[in-house]
C-alpha cells in the first residue's frame, strides 16, 4: 500500500496512505482519512455479514426445509439490526463524512481528532458485542425489539442491547464532531452558503445523529435493565407503546432520513460529472433543512398500523406528507442541473440515476403509507419493510456508490475500470427491483413485515425475489471487487479527473496527511 507512485510533489508531502502502515498505526491513527477507510472496512464487513444472514430467509422462502422457526427469527433479527444500526446509519458519515468533510471545507482534520477515533472504536465495540450475542445466545425477537417478546427472549439480550448502546454513542460522537468541525474549521472566507452540498447534508444529518444517538443509546440501556429485572420503564408491566414510541422516535429520523446526506452526495456528484454548478444551491439547502425538520416531526408514521391511535395516525400521516415538497424541489433541481450540462458519462452517473430511481420509489412509497386507510392496512406488512429495503439497499447504497466512484480517484489515487463498474451497476439496479417489487406485492397480500417469505401462496413471487437478490449480490461483488483491485494495481488517477471545482480536488491524490498547508 505504500508504493504509491513517487511523483515529485509526493516525495515532499507524503500521502496519508504512505506513512507507517502497521495494524497498530492504523488503529491509533487520528487522521480523518485513515479513520474513513477503517469505517469503510468495518461497515462493509457488517454489510457483508448482514447479506450472508439474509440468504437464510431466502432459502426458506423458496421452500427450504429443516430451518427451525427460532433460527429464522434469529437470522432475521440480526440481519436487519446489522443493516440498520451498523450500516445504514454509520456508513455515509463514517466513510464519506470522515473523508470529505474536512477536505470540502478546507480543514486539516476534524475538530476533535480523538473523538473521531472514539467514534470508530465505539462502533467496533458495539459491533463486537452484537456479534458476540449472535455467536453465543442469539436473540430472536425481531429487530424492533418489541418489549414483551424481548423480555421473554432466552438469548443474550442484555449483551446485544449494550452493543446497541455503543452504536448509539458512536453516532452521537460523530454528530458532535461534524457539527463543531463545520462551525469552527471552515477555511477563512468560506461561509455556510459556500459549503458544497455534501458538507451541508452531513452537517444537517449530524443533528439527527446527535439526537438519535443519545436517545437510542439511553433507551437501549434501559431496555437491557428491564430485561434483567423485568421491571422498569420497559418492564413486564409497561405499556408496549412506550418502547415502540421511544424506539421509533430515536430510529426513524436517522434511518429513513439517512437520505439527507445521500442527497448531498448525489448533488455534488451530479454537479461534478456534468461540469455545472448545482442549480438552485440555496433552494437545495432549504429543502435539506426542511427534510431534517420533517425527519423528527414525522417519526410516528412508523407506528401507523402498529398500535398508533386513529388521531395519531392522521396527524403523523399529514406531517410525513409534508416531505413531498422538499423531495419535489430536489428532483427538479437535479433535473435542471443536468439540463444543458456537459456530462462525462461514467458509472458515477449510473449510480446517480439509480439513486433517483430508488430514492424516488422510497419517497413515493411514503405516499401510500401516509394515506390513512392504506397505511393502516399496510403499515405492519412487508410492503412497509420493503420501503426500508429501498432505503437501505437502494437509496443510501446507490448514493454511497455514486460517491465512492466519484471520489475513489481522490481517496486512493487510483483509477478503476469504468466499464466493469457499469456492468455491476446494471446488475445491481435490475436485481434490486426484481427483488423488492415482489415484496411490495407480497405485502399487499398480507405477508407480515420482516417475516420474509413465510407464506406459501406467494411462492412464485418469493422465487422471483430470490432471483433478484442473486443479481444484487453478484452486482455488488463486481462493484466492490472492481474498486478493491485498484488498491494493488498501480494505475494512478489524475488529480482532478472530473474538472470539479470543490476544494477537495485541489489537493494531490491521495491527499497528503495534513490535506492543505
Amino acid at each position, binding site marked *: 500500500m505504500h508504493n504509491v507512485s513517487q511523483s515529485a510533489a509526493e516525495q515532499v508531502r507524503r500521502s496519508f496512505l504512505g506513512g507507517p502502515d502497521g495494524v497498530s498505526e492504523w488503529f491509533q491513527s487520528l487522521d480523518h482519512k485513515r479513520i474513513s477507510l477503517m469505517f469503510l472496512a468495518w461497515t462493509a464487513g457488517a454489510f457483508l455479514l448482514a447479506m450472508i444472514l439474509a440468504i437464510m430467509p431466502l432459502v426458506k422462502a423458496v421452500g427450504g426445509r429443516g430451518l427451525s422457526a427460532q433460527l429464522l427469527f434469529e437470522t432475521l433479527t440480526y440481519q436487519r439490526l446489522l443493516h440498520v444500526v451498523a450500516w445504514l446509519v454509520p456508513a455515509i458519515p463514517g466513510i464519506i463524512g470522515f473523508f470529505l468533510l474536512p477536505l470540502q471545507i478546507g480543514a486539516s482534520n476534524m475538530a476533535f481528532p480523538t473523538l473521531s477515533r472514539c467514534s470508530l472504536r465505539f462502533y467496533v465495540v458495539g459491533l463486537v458485542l452484537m456479534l458476540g450475542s449472535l455467536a453465543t445466545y442469539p436473540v430472536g425477537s425481531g429487530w424492533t425489539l418489541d418489549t414483551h417478546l424481548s423480555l421473554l427472549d432466552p438469548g443474550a439480550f442484555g449483551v446485544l442491547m449494550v452493543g446497541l448502546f455503543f452504536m448509539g454513542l458512536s453516532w452521537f460522537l460523530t454528530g458532535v464532531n461534524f457539527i463543531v468541525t463545520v462551525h469552527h474549521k471552515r477555511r477563512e472566507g468560506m461561509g455556510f452558503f459556500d459549503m458544497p452540498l455534501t458538507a451541508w447534508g452531513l452537517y444537517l444529518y449530524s443533528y439527527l445523529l446527535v439526537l438519535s444517538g443519545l436517545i437510542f443509546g439511553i433507551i437501549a440501556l434501559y431496555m437491557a435493565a428491564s430485561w434483567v429485572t423485568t421491571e422498569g420503564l420497559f418492564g413486564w408491566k409497561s405499556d408496549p407503546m412506550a418502547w415502540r414510541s421511544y424506539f421509533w422516535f430515536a430510529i426513524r429520523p436517522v434511518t429513513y432520513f439517512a437520505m439527507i446526506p445521500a442527497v448531498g452526495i448525489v448533488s455534488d456528484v451530479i454537479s461534478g460529472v456534468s461540469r455545472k454548478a448545482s442549480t438552485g444551491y440555496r433552494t437545495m439547502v432549504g429543502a435539506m433543512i426542511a427534510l431534517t425538520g420533517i425527519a423528527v416531526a414525522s417519526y410516528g408514521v412508523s407506528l401507523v398500523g402498529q398500535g398508533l391511535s386513529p388521531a395519531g395516525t392522521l396527524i403523523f400521516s399529514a406531517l410525513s406528507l409534508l416531505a413531498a415538497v422538499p423531495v419535489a424541489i430536489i428532483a427538479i433541481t437535479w433535473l435542471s442541473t443536468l439540463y444543458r450540462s456537459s456530462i462525462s458519462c461514467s458509472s458515477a452517473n449510473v449510480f446517480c440515476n439509480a439513486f433517483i430511481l430508488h430514492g424516488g420509489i422510497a419517497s413515493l412509497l411514503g405516499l401510500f403509507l401516509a394515506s390513512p386507510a392504506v397505511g393502516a392496512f399496510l403499515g405492519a406488512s412487508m410492503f412497509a419493510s420493503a420501503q426500508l429495503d429501498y432505503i437501505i439497499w437502494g437509496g443510501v447504497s446507490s448514493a454511497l456508490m455514486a460517491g465512492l466512484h466519484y471520489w475513489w480517484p481522490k481517496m486512493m489515487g487510483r483509477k478503476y475500470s469504468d466499464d466493469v463498474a457499469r456492468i455491476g451497476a446494471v446488475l445491481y439496479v435490475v436485481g434490486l427491483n426484481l427483488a423488492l417489487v415482489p415484496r411490495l406485492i407480497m405485502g399487499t397480500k398480507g405477508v*407480515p413485515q420482516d417475516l420474509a417469505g413465510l407464506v406459501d401462496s406467494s411462492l412464485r413471487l418469493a422465487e422471483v425475489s430470490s432471483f433478484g437478490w442473486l443479481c444484487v449480490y453478484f452486482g455488488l461483488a463486481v462493484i466492490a471487487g472492481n474498486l478493491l483491485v485498484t488498491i494493488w494495481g498501480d494505475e494512478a488517477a489524475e488529480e482532478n479527473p472530473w474538472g470539479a471545482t470543490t476544494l477537495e480536488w485541489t489537493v494531490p491524490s491521495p491527499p497528503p496527511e495534513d490535506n492543505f498547508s
Partner: protein
Amino acid sequence: MIGSANLSAWFPEWGSTHAPDVDVPFFDIYVVTVTILILTVGLAVVFTRTFTRKEGDPEQMPAVGTNKILLGLGVVGAIALAGFAFQTGLSGFVGQRVAPYGAFEVSVTAREGVWDFTYPDGHVADTLRVAVGQPVHLTMTSQDISQNMSIPDLRVNQTIMPGHTTEAWFETIRPGTFPIRTGAFSAATYDSMTSVVVSLPAEEFAAWQAAVGDIFAGRTMAEVGELLYNQQGCKACHSLDGSNLVGPSLKNVYGFEFLTTTGETVLADDAYIKESILTPNASVIAEYQPVMTPYAGILGDQEIQAITEFLKTISDRGHTGGQEDK
C-alpha cells in the same frame, strides 16, 4: 398506464366491505406515482444521454439559477399530490374505525399463538365464525405479547397489546375461510397464521349458532356443568383440586356442612348451592370475603342444575349427603 394490466397482482380478492376503502386509494396513488416515477427517472436518463460532453464544451458550463416557474409548479404539484394521497385514504380510514350500530359483538383475547373469540352468548371458540353480510365488531386485548390481528382478505389490521383494548370491525361479502396473521416473531405463530375467520352464509351461520348455543345438546348434565365452570369464570376463584383460592375449592362441597360468618352451619344441598350462585352474599362462608359475583339473571335453573350435578361428581358425598335431607 404501465402495470395497470397487472393491478390484480396486488392484494387478495375482496372479502369485506373494507376492501374498496383500501384498494381504491391504493390504485389511485399507484397510477399517479408510477407516472411521476417514469417521468423523473426517464428525464434523468434522457438528459444524461443527451447532454454528454462534446468537443469544444467549456471547462465549466455556465451556472444558471432555478427556473422559478418550474419550481413553483413543483411545489404546488407536491402539495396537491400530498393532499390527494391524504384525502383519498381518509374517508375509508374513518369508516373503518366506526363500527355500525348493532354489530355482532365478539371479544377477542389473544395469547402467544392462541385466540379466544367470545360470542355474545358466552360461547368461546378458537376460530372466528361470522355470517356473510353481518357487521362484526371486535374488542381485543392480549394477555402477553403485542401482536397484530391482520386479516388480509378482509383488509383488517389492528394491533393487540397487553393493557390496551383495541377495536376493529368488518362485514364479509362472501363465504370463505380467511387466515388471520399476527406478524409476531414467535415460534407459536411460526407460520404467522394462527387462526382463521370462517365466513358462512347467513342460514348456515344461524344453524351453527343454534348448535353451539344449545350447550345441552349431546352433553350429560355434569358435562354441561363443567363447561359452565370453565366458561363462566368460576375457575378464576374456585379450584377443583381442594386448594382454596379467592373462594373455597369446589371439591367436596356438595353434601358437606359449612360454617358461615354469622356462626350458623349450613348444609350444601341443591337449594343452598343454587342460593350461593344466584345471591352469594345471602350467606357467606366463614373466613371468606363476600366478593363472589352474583349470577342471578346470568345462569338459569337448568344451568344451575347442571353445575350442581357437576359438583356432585367431584364430591365424596355426591350421592349420599344432601339428597336424603331434602
